[in-house]
């Protein structure tokens, strides 16, 4: 795996950063620089928050209920602030549905966890000859590099297992953190800024020697990642990960837990992850993925949803949407909700639902997109997409690209030079970009 520049990436601006820092480098200078640039962050930066429901969520019980059908299950739909009905167990979200929409006409073919995960994240089917980047890496590449004031990684994944940046290279890999916000090895306790500065300065001397030794590009790529790591260590933006700085009421609203800290099910990690996501977006991180696991409900689906998953989901989505709106960030932040696939309309003998990719729903909103609409529909038993057009993840990511201002005709290159169109040539969904 040899690091190659994706075409179009300007190494020059990075080298400028690095050359300056290698030469002068006291860490104190770093910190001063960061504080001076804090003011710049106020300008309009677009972001996307992906809520990833790992395991395959039963969208037929959440966003597209079929009460008249034998597949309808135990839940009833309720009215919302938008033009559609959703599950009765999502009452808080129902009040925010004027801001959010549901694409009910997803039909995506991949019903295997690994393949589905890959397909939904990258918009490409898994292929043995190339590794495609997850869309977060695409956004990191397209938007992150341009945000010079951003000192923390441009693609943060909270609670997830990671995904590959593929041909876009390691500097666009997701930065993994857990919902506690602890980042391993982020600090060196007992090391004064002077010592850090001395170390980095010496590092620059040694590194430049190798870079100038006619051995190719590797030395430079290494330096860049180190630069990012040092930025991380010394950046005030690291505060984004410290969600305990939030008021307890805020965290309580996001996690459906009492303010004093009673836990349920997943321990409120999803809600806490969303709080962190909001804090990251406030500081200009263009893509945050928040993981919510445990959706592979082959058995006891209604009980699980009712007592555990939906209260957390409901609280989280509603609180995040309201919070972003209140801070004036919602029109610049796209929210996406999806999993690797959804679950069968047919209820199995264990009162569960199995894997199903043929007809399901993805939720998407914010970012200036139309809220409160249902795009497409499924038949009365939820078995097929009955509206004329069915959608792929590429269409969802194309819609996100539209909202983020990434040109739709972008074409990246794999390591072997194969052209890779943005979002696998998906098209933005008309009903949402209205």
């Amino acid at each position, binding site marked *: 795996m040899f690091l190659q520049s994706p075409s179009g990436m300007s190494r020059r601006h990075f080298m400028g950063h690095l050359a300056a820092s290698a030469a002068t480098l006291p860490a104190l200078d770093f910190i001063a620089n960061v504080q001076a640039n804090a003011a710049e962050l106020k300008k309009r930066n677009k972001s996307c928050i992906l809520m990833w429901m790992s395991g395959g969520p039963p969208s037929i019980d959440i966003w597209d209920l079929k009460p008249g059908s034998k597949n309808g299950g135990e839940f009833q739909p309720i009215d919302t602030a938008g033009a559609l009905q959703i599950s009765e167990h999502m009452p808080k979200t129902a009040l925010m549905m004027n801001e959010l929409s549901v694409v009910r006409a997803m039909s995506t073919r991949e019903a295997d966890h690994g393949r589905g995960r890959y397909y939904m994240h990258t918009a490409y089917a898994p292929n043995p000859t190339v590794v495609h980047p997850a869309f977060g890496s695409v956004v990191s590449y397209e938007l992150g590099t341009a945000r010079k004031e951003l000192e923390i990684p441009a693609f943060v994944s909270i609670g997830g297992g990671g995904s590959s940046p593929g041909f876009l290279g390691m500097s666009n890999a997701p930065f993994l953190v857990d919902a506690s916000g602890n980042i*391993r*090895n982020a600090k060196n306790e007992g090391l004064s800024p002077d010592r850090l500065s001395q170390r980095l300065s*010496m590092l620059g001397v040694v*590194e430049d020697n190798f870079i100038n*030794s006619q*051995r190719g590009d*590797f030395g430079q790529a290494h330096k860049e990642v180190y630069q990012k790591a040092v930025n991380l260590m010394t950046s005030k933006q690291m505060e984004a990960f410290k969600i305990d700085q939030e008021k307890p009421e805020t965290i309580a609203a996001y996690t459906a837990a009492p303010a004093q800290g009673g836990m349920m099910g997943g321990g409120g990690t999803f809600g806490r992850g969303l709080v962190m996501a909001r804090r990251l977006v406030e500081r200009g991180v263009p893509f945050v993925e928040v993981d919510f696991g445990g959706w592979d409900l082959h058995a006891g689906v209604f009980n699980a949803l009712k007592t555990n998953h939906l209260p957390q989901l409901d609280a989280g989505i509603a609180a995040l949407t309201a919070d972003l709106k209140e801070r004036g960030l919602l029109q610049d932040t796209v929210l996406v909700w999806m999993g690797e696939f959804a679950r069968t309309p047919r209820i199995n003998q264990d009162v569960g639902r199995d894997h199903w990719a043929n007809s399901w729903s993805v939720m998407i909103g914010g970012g200036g997109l139309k809220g409160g609409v249902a795009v497409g529909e499924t038949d009365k038993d939820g078995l097929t997409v009955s509206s004329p057009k069915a959608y792929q993840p590429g269409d969802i990511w194309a819609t996100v690209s539209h909202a983020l201002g990434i040109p739709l005709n972008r074409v990246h290159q794999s390591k072997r030079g194969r052209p890779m169109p943005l979002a696998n040539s998906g098209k933005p969904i008309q009903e949402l970009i209205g």
Partner: protein
Amino acid sequence: MLAGWSQKLRGSTAAVITGMALSIVVGVMASTASAAEETPKTDSSKTDAPKADATKSAGERLSGEVQSGDAVIDFINQEIRQAWQDNGLEPSPVADDYEWIRRVHLDIVGHIPEADVVEEFVASKDKSKRSILIDQLLDDPGYVRNWTTVWTNLCIGQNTPRRVSRDGMTKFFREAFGRGRAWNEVVFDLVSAEGHFEQNGAVNYLLAQMQDADDGVQMTAKTTRLFLGMQVQCTQCHDHPFNEWKQDQFWKFNSFFRQTGKIDHRKYDPKSGRDVDDYSEIVWRDFDGPVFFEKRNGLMQVAYPIYFGSEIDPGPVTERRKELAKLMTSGEQPAIALAMVNRMWCHFFGYGFTRPIDDIGPHNPPTHPALMERLATEFVNSGYDPKTLIKWIANSDAYTRTSRLSKKNQADNPAVGEIPMFSRVYVKPMTAEQLYDSLIIATNAHKSGRSGWEQSERQRQVWLQQFVSTFGNDEGEESSSFDGSIPQALMMMNGELVGDAVSFKSGSHLGDILSGKGSDTQKLQKIYLTSLSRLPTKGELNAVQKYFRGSREPLAVYSDLFWALLNSNEFIFNH
């Protein structure tokens, strides 16, 4: 056997230079001739020296005069040199001893050399010292450990899959490399294994490919790639897009694996009162007749167990995997030999004769086809001995070269897409295991004897897990590498391992150096030798002096310097 696709690239040098490898499927279907067809251009392989004597350094003259005394090594040198001439390249100079000893250690035993070993080697005036060192490293226990690690990772990944025993797998490979087992026997065992995953560690390879109940699809794809060097997985669903292979090729391979079953045993754990995982095993499953598969147009097809034209009895009694193993490991130049040669060459040089190394086929012509084939034949003749193969490669003239580009071979830069001509050894990132083992050497932790072997292994596994859990996907590229992400940079900068290394605790290497005899300059030299396996340049010494002058804590300067050296790009790359 793979007669159909052997290309003669020598005549099409223009194509090589322009690098349009895919478009050269020129139909010169030569037989897989041995070197008998190729008459060497030079009459004596001993006059390897380049014609421009004036530019020869001491190092180069040394290399030219070392008689390999071995026909295979001579053939390697000749073929490589011929391709340089055909492409108008001249090789980079011979690497100095510092550069070379570090690289050969990393490549053969998986860690950097100790400072003393470097100093001794550099001081030696023995003209055949490089060759002698190669032999010594092959007999070092580090050889067994390194190749066990490499092949365990290739077979079951760095992240151990469910119901697979990593201990079982490593035990199998430790034995294979420790006892010098023939490679074809190793492959035979891996493909045909049955039984308990700790008693017959070889089964872990198969178990790792059985994570999904997929009728042996993953097993088929992995076996063909890893051992045969062929990527047939595209043909699972359709005819291969770039070559003659048809969809039934994949399913013919697959039909050999259909008698593979596994049992995941559980046992009762009295402590928790629950059933927990016990052992897993590979067992026989009844299967006979053809495999059915669907073409894209929906038509059903059949595939029988046929291996490159050799049919076996598809009846219920045939042990298909055993038959497959026999077929795979016989012949004069079987695919497993070509695949191993390609992989081994890539291990040492950074690139193989094809790219990717496990995609050998008519659509992917090798850079040096005659060389690759001769090496495969000789590898078979040597009794499939990996050590012999390594000796040939590591003793070649090309491997003695530096990794620096020179004015005369600027085009030899595969990292930007050029075709590799091996006029220099290419830079390779260290693997996570190499990094860990090298940091241990830099700390002297391996000498402090503070933990027994098993505990050290556990510590190593724990340390490695911090990277593996992050990026546990299989890219299938040439080397499983340490990928240069921010968490890794943070670990190197602030983590305990480097932290210990740069402290001057008693017993630590740095502590020993600083409290030992010698001038400041000598101490600095020792620090450089320990970390980068070389001496500091004058410029570096001057730069460090500046830090001493500007600081009131000389010990801190030493510590910070060591820190910088261990964190540097020069440390983390194998060059």
